[in-house]
């Protein structure tokens, strides 16, 4: 068996077969979170705070409980006390305790026999509030005199004397900044802001929970990670983790936002209180936008120095981010990745995690990275302009490559940043002529990727077909990728592989489909489990032939003698071995349980052309190019899809998406009408180039590709608008009124 080394020639990897779940998803048959119903089920609804910050004085459910068909009402009093740390945060966020901490914070929930009845009953639950001063802006929340969200929320990292709303502090760097800046011919320092953006998955959170008085039950839910869901939900309810079996539905988008809990423990608690009847809960879009996790908003100062010939000599960044009423804004990642694209000797980052009266932030595709990229890639663009340098050549001059010590510490292994820059430069989009009011922007981005806890199993069926069981929900075609990798490993047709997403009762622990880890980690697990099966099948053939297992090789779906010395036997196909397995040692399966650490990051470079209407400030995307390193593209069409989807989300964040809070601390735009994600007519085709610099830590060279694509668009679009208008705008989104004001020479 030749398992060492990396394959370079593939039969199935790199092809684009139809996804196994395609038929279900084009016929309406696929079952998403809200699509399951069971006999006798109830429907839940949540009462939410209309106030940004308020003491909960009294909750009176008398009228609601008096309605016929209303079966249970829960408040925080129905949850255990004494939780700490992350568990307490989760519980407090799922159901407010003493205070409502943001507009949309859950304060009670009700279960009734129909959805309308549950909604009507929720309206009859009377909550008495004592309104408190609020703060929703990150810079305001750090100032002396700002309302304190919660005393004692800060951890040990926060230096003395800071406002209690500063809950985590980060300070890292290396080299000698003064020396670095002294070497520069030009130093540019700018302050930037980005607004909170929502993942905008089209499927609202939905679940169906059932739990008896014994604390045991079931949860059907749309989630990126059902083990996370199980651990968090049971922790919040104070029950043992294994008591709840969680089955993931098909998932209608997540982008990081479905890696935590909101309504799920409420459905379980309502079910228990209603005598164990299952309770279905489905969020409205209003609830999704007000009460689930958007990303953090950021306020940043970045200073960089460059020599005349384009070498970055030093970089300093201060990043202040608010992630709602709880610690967790991804400022740690922001500081880590701010300058990670480049080989910089003297670098320093400072980060503040600040709490405000906003919903608890959740992960959103490359959490923390796009904000940092907006600031640093804008400053680099400005340095290039002032010094008359080409933006791609300058990035090439400073690009991190294999052996570069990253600004966050470790040395990079083989990475493909240089290759993305060279491919972007060679692409026809980079030399397309531009007309009046048009501009071109370039920016690069990075995501370090992740491995995480991973369990998978592969089982051989009696006819030689193969079942792959993984624990990472298929959010964008990963069943196809797993099937391709299994087909490649076994040397059997893609169609002979069936991929299941197993529930929490069928596999060991798995992290979610997040961090760009599914294709890497579950893929690696699939391959390793397949190899275990192959080893067992080689042994079965060897036993039959009466030779050593080492003398058997696996090729093209068959066990074969390794050479003339091994003896002359006709190859045994997987079907032949499987057909006899009951009598040759029993069922054949392979397993993988590990936290693989061989992941490697993915760099991307984007080139965008825009046209700005000088009379209205409106920006139109004319052309868009994504170049990104996939390591090895397992299913290239779905890799392109990740590139294109990330770019579209980044374009939305750059141009029109933002959380707008009013003076009253209420979210002004909890509806898709005013939370403006890009529509089909807003975008051109999104051109892609897949760069492949294999990751040595994966048998086929895979790098995760999901996150990186959202990182460059923010600065790329801003740099293009700068090119088109002559105005550097340091605040996102680039809404027309802001761009027009800049064109008119006003301060923005």
């Amino acid at each position, binding site marked *: 068996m030749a398992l060492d080394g990396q394959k370079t020639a593939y039969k199935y990897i790199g092809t*684009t077969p*139809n*996804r196994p*779940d*395609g*038929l279900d*998803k*084009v*016929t*309406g048959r*696929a*079952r*998403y979170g*809200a*699509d399951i*119903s069971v006999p006798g089920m109830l429907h839940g609804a949540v009462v939410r705070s209309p106030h940004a910050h308020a003491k909960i004085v009294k909750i009176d459910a008398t009228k609601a409980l008096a309605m016929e068909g209303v079966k249970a009402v829960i408040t925080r009093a129905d949850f255990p006390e004494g939780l700490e740390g992350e568990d307490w945060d989760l519980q407090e966020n799922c159901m407010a305790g003493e205070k409502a901490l943001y507009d949309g914070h859950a304060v009670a929930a009700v279960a009734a026999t*129909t*959805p*309308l*009845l549950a909604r*009507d009953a929720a309206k009859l639950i009377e909550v008495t509030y004592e309104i408190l001063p609020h703060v929703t802006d990150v810079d305001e929340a750090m100032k002396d005199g700002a309302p304190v969200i919660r005393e004692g929320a800060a951890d040990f990292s926060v230096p003395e004397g800071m406002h209690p709303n500063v809950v985590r502090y980060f300070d890292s760097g290396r080299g000698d900044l003064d020396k670095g800046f002294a070497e520069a011919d030009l130093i540019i320092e700018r302050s930037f802001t980005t607004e909170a953006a929502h*993942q*905008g*998955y*089209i*499927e*609202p959170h939905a679940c169906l929970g059932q739990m008896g008085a014994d604390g045991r039950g079931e949860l059907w839910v749309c989630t990126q990670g059902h083990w996370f869901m199980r651990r968090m939900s049971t922790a919040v309810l104070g029950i043992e983790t294994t008591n709840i079996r969680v089955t993931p539905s*098909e*998932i*209608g*988008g*997540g*982008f990081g936002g479905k890696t935590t809990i909101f309504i799920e423990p409420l459905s379980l608690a309502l079910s228990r209180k209603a005598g164990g009847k299952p309770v279905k809960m*489905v969020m*409205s*879009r209003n609830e999704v936008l007000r009460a689930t996790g958007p990303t953090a908003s950021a306020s940043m100062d970045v200073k960089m120095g460059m020599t005349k010939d384009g070498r970055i000599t030093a970089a300093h960044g201060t990043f202040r981010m608010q992630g709602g009423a709880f610690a967790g804004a991804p400022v740690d990642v922001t500081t880590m990745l701010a300058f990670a694209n480049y080989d910089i000797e003297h670098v320093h980052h400072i980060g503040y995690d600040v709490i405000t009266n906003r919903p608890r932030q959740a992960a959103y595709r490359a959490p923390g990275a796009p904000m940092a990229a907006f600031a640093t890639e804008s400053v680099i663009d400005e340095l290039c302009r002032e010094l008359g340098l080409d933006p791609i050549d300058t990035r090439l001059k400073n690009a991190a490559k294999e052996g570069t010590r990253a600004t966050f510490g470790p040395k990079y292994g083989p990475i493909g940043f240089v290759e993305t820059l060279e491919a972007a430069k060679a692409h026809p989009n980079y030399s397309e002529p531009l007309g009046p009011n048009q501009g071109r922007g370039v920016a690069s981005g990075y995501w370090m990727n992740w491995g995480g806890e991973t369990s998978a199993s592969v089982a051989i069926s009696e006819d030689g077909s193969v079942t792959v069981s993984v624990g990472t929900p298929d*959010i*964008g*075609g990963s069943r196809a990728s797993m099937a391709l990798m299994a087909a490649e490993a076994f040397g059997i047709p893609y169609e002979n592989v069936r991929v299941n997403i197993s529930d929490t009762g069928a596999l060991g622990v798995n992290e979610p489909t997040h961090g760009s880890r599914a294709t890497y980690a579950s893929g690696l697990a699939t391959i390793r489990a397949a190899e275990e099966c192959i080893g067992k099948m080689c042994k079965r053939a060897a036993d039959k032939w009466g030779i050593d297992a080492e003398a058997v090789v696996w090729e093209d779906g068959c066990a074969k003698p390794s050479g003339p010395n091994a003896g002359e036997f006709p190859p045994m196909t997987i079907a032949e071995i499987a057909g006899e397995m009951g009598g040759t040692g029993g069922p054949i399966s392979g397993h993988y349980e590990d936290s693989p650490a061989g992941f490697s990051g993915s760099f991307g470079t984007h080139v965008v052309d825009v046209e700005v209407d000088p009379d209205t400030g409106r920006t139109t995307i004319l052309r868009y190019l994504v170049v990104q390193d996939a390591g090895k593209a397992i*299913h290239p*069409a*779905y890799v*392109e*899809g990740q590139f*294109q*989807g990330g*770019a*579209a*989300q980044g374009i939305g964040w750059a141009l029109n998406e933002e959380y707008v809070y009013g003076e009253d601390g209420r979210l002004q735009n909890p*509806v*898709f*009408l005013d939370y403006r*994600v*890009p*529509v*089909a*007519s807003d*975008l051109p*085709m*999104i051109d892609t180039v897949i760069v492949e610099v294999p990751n040595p830590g994966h048998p086929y060279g895979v790098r995760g590709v999901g996150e990186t694509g959202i990182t460059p668009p923010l600065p790329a679009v801003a740099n293009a608008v700068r090119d088109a208008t002559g105005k550097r705008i340091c605040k996102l989104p680039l809404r027309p009124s802001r761009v027009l004001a800049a064109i008119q020479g006003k301060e923005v």
Partner: protein
Amino acid sequence: MSKRIHVSTTVNGDEADFLCDPRETLLDCLRDHLGVMGVKEGCGTGDCGACSVTLDGRLVCSCLVLGVEAEGKEVGTVEGMAAGEVLHPLQRKFIEHAALQCGICTPGILVAAKTLLERNPDPTETELRYWLAGNLCRCTGYDKIIRAVMDAAAEMREAS
């Protein structure tokens, strides 16, 4: 609770009856009373198109139609697109072009695209993008969706 109303309608060619509260939308009724689950709720306010159906052949958001308004009408959903085992060309092209990632918007987009091609078998890319502007997709950036519809349109023109 309001008094329930009996509604007789047709869904994908089959007669269907249900009792509904007059506040319930056609989307609610299709899903909760008739089990037609290919119709999805993404927003409930007509902004995302995931609940797109045809009502007497006209493309609408079923969240913006009351269940009682379906009385005597013909409702068409994604479940009615394939002819038995044979997929509609749009359905087939969506799979072939990887035009779906999570797939939650797919039923609505298929229904919307089908109504366009019935009216205009040879749309330009711009016409198609504007026709589909009410169908949000957050995964794909629309690129592969547009390619799939254009390819299906070309195939359907050749076949006719």
